[in-house]
């Protein structure tokens, strides 16, 4: 892969201590000297150019300035604004009325629907990520084979990936519809159900219906990650296993899966982040249900600020801070993942 050398340049740099202070003491971005040995992936083709020339920091700063301005202005500043808002008291129109101390946080923690929302979030993230990974493994395995029309299948896989999530979600509100939905039509025609299922209003079906859409839109990216992982496995490993008399299942379990582990970790962590942050699917498919019965922490936070009767910016911000902290935990796991990969396998 073209960008495969990016990380160990970061790692090989002598200042990764700066990284440590930003997240926590235990999460160094892999400082192992092994990071430098790129020999195992064709390092001869790619001389280590990044380390030759030094430049004074004011010059570098000038080149980084536009990027830094964007990051500081639109990522870090909103993060600060979020924290500030979480300690504020606001009018319904959004004017700051004064400090609220920790009351927004205690209001979120005391919210009667918080437990439901947290449980929904856990179910949503775990179900979507696990199902996505399992199905994507099979899809990638299949797409790594040579057959007529493989290109067309790969193009078909691109459509749910490229289409805006909100469009796909809107589409599924109709597909799931009790009266006019295609899904009920298909199920009834095939005699799989006797009467239509109210996928988006029946409390038992809302979450599974949303999970299905979540898996549907997450498979393409994940399958592509696994496909890249499969392609990186050298062919002679399989040859050797076959000569040793390993059966197909044995080859898969003992060779393919272990060698796919880096891809697996990356796919899991990125999917956890994407799925946790996912907004349009839940917001749209759950639109017809009042309250927070099927919300995750992300849509809960959004509704608190912009939709609910109380329209509490401060409470929503406090919920947002909780969300960001949760994601930070995931980032820490992610960095450990990277470290794990830098170690010799």
């Amino acid at each position, binding site marked *: 892969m073209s960008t495969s050398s990016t990380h160990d340049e970061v790692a090989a740099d002598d200042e990764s201590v700066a990284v440590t202070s930003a997240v926590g003491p235990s999460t160094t971005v892999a400082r192992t000297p092994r990071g430098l040995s790129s020999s195992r992936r064709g390092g001869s083709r790619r001389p280590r150019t990044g380390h030759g020339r030094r430049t004074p920091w004011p*010059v570098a*700063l000038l080149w*980084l300035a*536009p990027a830094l301005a964007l*990051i500081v202005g639109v990522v870090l500043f909103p993060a600060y604004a979020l924290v*500030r808002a979480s300690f504020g008291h606001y009018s319904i129109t959004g004017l700051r009325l004064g400090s609220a101390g920790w009351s927004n946080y205690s209001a979120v923690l005391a919210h009667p629907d918080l437990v439901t929302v947290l449980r929904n979030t856990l179910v949503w993230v775990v179900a979507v990520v696990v199902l996505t990974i399992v199905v994507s493994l099979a899809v990638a395995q299949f797409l790594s084979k*040579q057959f007529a029309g493989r290109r067309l299948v790969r193009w078909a896989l691109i459509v749910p990936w490229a289409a805006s999530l909100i469009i796909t979600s809107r589409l599924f509100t109709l597909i799931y519809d009790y009266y006019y939905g295609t899904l009920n039509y298909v199920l009834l025609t095939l005699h799989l159900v006797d009467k239509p299922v109210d996928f988006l209003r029946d409390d038992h079906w809302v979450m599974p219906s949303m999970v299905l859409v979540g898996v549907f839109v997450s498979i*393409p990216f994940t399958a592509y990650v696994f496909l890249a992982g499969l392609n990186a496995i050298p062919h002679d490993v399989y040859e050797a296993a076959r000569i040793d008399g390993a059966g197909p299942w044995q080859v898969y379990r003992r060779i393919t899966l272990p060698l796919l582990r880096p891809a697996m970790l990356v796919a899991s962590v990125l999917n956890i982040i994407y799925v946790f942050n996912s907004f349009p699917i839940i917001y749209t498919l759950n639109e017809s249900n009042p309250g927070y019965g099927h919300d995750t922490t992300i849509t809960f936070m*959004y509704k608190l600020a912009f939709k609910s009767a109380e329209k509490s910016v401060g409470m929503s911000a406090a919920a947002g801070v909780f969300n960001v902290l949760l994601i930070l935990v995931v980032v820490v796991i992610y960095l450990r993942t990277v470290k794990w990969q830098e170690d010799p396998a």
Partner: protein
Amino acid sequence: MTTLTADAPGPRTRRPGSGRGARRFVLPLVGLALALVFLGPYIVMLLDALRPSADVVHTPTTFFPRTWQLSTFADVLSDPRFLNWLKTSVIVATASTAIVVVAAIPAAYMTARYVFPGRTAFLFLVLVTQMFSPTALVVGIYREFFALNLVNTYAALIITNAAFNLAFATWILHGFFSSIPSEVEEAAHLDGCGRWRTLTRVMLPLTLPGLVTAVIFTFIAAWNEYVVALTLIQDDARKPLTVGINSYVTGYEQHWDQLFGASIIAIVPVVILFALIEKHLVGGLTAGSIK
């Protein structure tokens, strides 16, 4: 590409080639089924765009339209509301892509070719922004633009989209810049090129595939963005497509045909662009992690 685990049983259990005939037949069929699973919902969308809205919500449901309505796309394209949303999407996606290019190229070049204090910290910062989503920060983003009086403006959408797509562009360009042998750069220096001319005349042309990928990916991400636009834009005329088209089906009016016609107009160019950069996408999205 080689068939990795194909020809499943070992060579001793089956004569070479004996499974080929079945495989030549079965694999494309499974492929077709898989393609239908992923295209199916969008086929439903197309068929619903090609019938009157009353036929979409008519029981009993039929898979194919009872009456075909081929005018949907012309109707949508002549709807002034739709044209406003389209205009917003084009302006926002184009401008944020331009900003990303201007910000990412020098940053990626500097970090890929030079060593300086704070380099690692910067790259880490970029990695972290890739972890954060505008969704998680949306209340903060709203507070910021509310304070700056930029709610309901293109500018707010443009810089937000630029900032959150910067990471992908920087990583993928960083990878491409790093892969260029240093001799190329040294030769340019010997010929008297300064740093800027070396970048624009020598290095940039060599990273063209990376640049194209970054440009297309940013454009698509900005084109598809929903949460920030939903929050920051209340003025109907300034909504982008993703937010605007939802007003085709609300509690008050139900134009399913137009909703889906507009959706298809929004999707098709994106799918084509996406297919063009398919190969580089995984590399960019998992930069710094997958080996």
